[in-house]
């Protein structure tokens, strides 16, 4: 019973915003009324994401991403805070997106248009006086499909990173991890592709 009571208290605290915190974009959903734009570049995706906090525990946003394989991937996403305790929290994320090839000039890795859905679970730990540094990790599963057997796949992505707010509304984000097809047993086995991105976010 005590365990459930602790969990309930954590869930309840998840709904409340702490105004003294730096409100980093990787530290769970943005507080109600706060917006953020994040620009990031790297592998496999680069792009721009705009998010807005709709409730103290829920935000949603739009994204436009692309990859050097020659595709654009616009999408919608939302995050919901599951737990929060002080500067730490646990967040669920859901994304839906559509990817299609873009004019890639002479030759291109042949990318077929697909739709994808992604579900992720992220944990973050805030450091510093105002939680101005966030260390986070996320595991997500992604289904990419064109509704055919040959071009549908389940993928697993694991990333970890850090966000640092050196000044005012600006923060810098770096993350690294791995993306791989889910048929192989372990995320840590050889294979797959590196996920390495760096970017900056502005909150307003």
């Amino acid at each position, binding site marked *: 019973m005590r365990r459930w009571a602790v969990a309930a208290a954590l869930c309840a605290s998840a709904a409340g915003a702490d105004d003294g915190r730096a409100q980093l974009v990787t530290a769970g959903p943005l507080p109600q009324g706060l917006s953020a734009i994040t620009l990031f570049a790297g592998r496999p995706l680069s792009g721009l994401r705009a998010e807005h906090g709709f409730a103290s525990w829920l935000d949603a946003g739009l994204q436009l991403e692309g990859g050097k*394989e020659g595709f654009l991937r*616009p999408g919608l996403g939302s995050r919901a805070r599951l737990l929060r305790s002080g500067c730490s929290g646990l967040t669920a994320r859901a994304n839906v997106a559509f990817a299609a090839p873009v004019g890639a000039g002479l*030759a291109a890795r*042949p990318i077929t248009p697909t739709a994808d859905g992604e579900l992720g679970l992220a944990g973050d730990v805030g450091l510093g006086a105002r939680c101005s540094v966030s260390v986070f990790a996320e595991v997500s599963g992604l289904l990419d499909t064109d509704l055919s057997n040959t071009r549908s796949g389940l993928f697993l992505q694991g990333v970890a990173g850090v966000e640092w707010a050196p000044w005012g509304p600006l923060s810098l984000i770096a993350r690294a991890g791995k993306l791989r097809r889910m048929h192989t047993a372990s995320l840590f086995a050889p294979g797959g*592709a590196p996920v390495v991105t760096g970017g900056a976010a502005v909150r307003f």
Partner: protein
Amino acid sequence: VFNLAHRSGTRAGLRGLSALWLLWGAAACGPGVPILTYHSISDLEDPYALSEQDFAAQLDWVKSAGFHTVTLREVLDADRQRGSLPPNPIVLTFDDGYQDNYVKALPLLVARGQRATFFVVARFLGADEAHRHIEAPGTPGERRFLLLSEARELAAAGMEIGSHSLLHRRLTTLPLDEVRRDVQASRDELSAALGQPVDFFAYPYNSERRQVRKLVEAAGYRAAVAGGHGMGDRFELPRVTVYRNMKPADLKSRLAEGWAAAAAEAN
């Protein structure tokens, strides 16, 4: 008033969405010309060696799927408005210049009216049988490379010949002066030996970086092919590698992958 504002807001939203959709349609104009990478056509126990039967099945599928094989020269010419490409163009490339490219691949290509680009290692082209370049001779992994006369016959049969460097060294590990000499000498020697310009380059091991690309361009090549991570500019054209035991269905799926598969399984 609220309703009017609401309706005009909705209309504006729909207009915005339509504009975005048009923009998307303009951007999503489809992939460029896919380029496949083959190596040895043989039964070698090598992840890059494809059996003759699997290769023939792939060529048949390429034809039945409506693809038309073209050379890199035709792709470049079309890009510069100097020519046009057939519908569904595809480029087949062979790296390393194995003898089986001439003995096994060429007859299968010619029989189907298909063409390919063969990237040969300039100094591996032997002058005659006594000087044929052979790696691991007498072992199950023996690799025999083309003679110059065989490379000439490939060219005479309408195939395109490109350079795969002078000695098949990983160029990214060499001093830049050495890279400069390598890419220039391989072009000059091959052009002289074949009696025709050699305008295309394939990076050994698909290993390249910006300085190497610049030196390849400075040597006078028109374009260069890379691996799955190529960015699509003229000196980093991405290719899809064909592996051992790949059937036509596997090739089909590799010729149209979702973004996640392409990102997670590049090359």
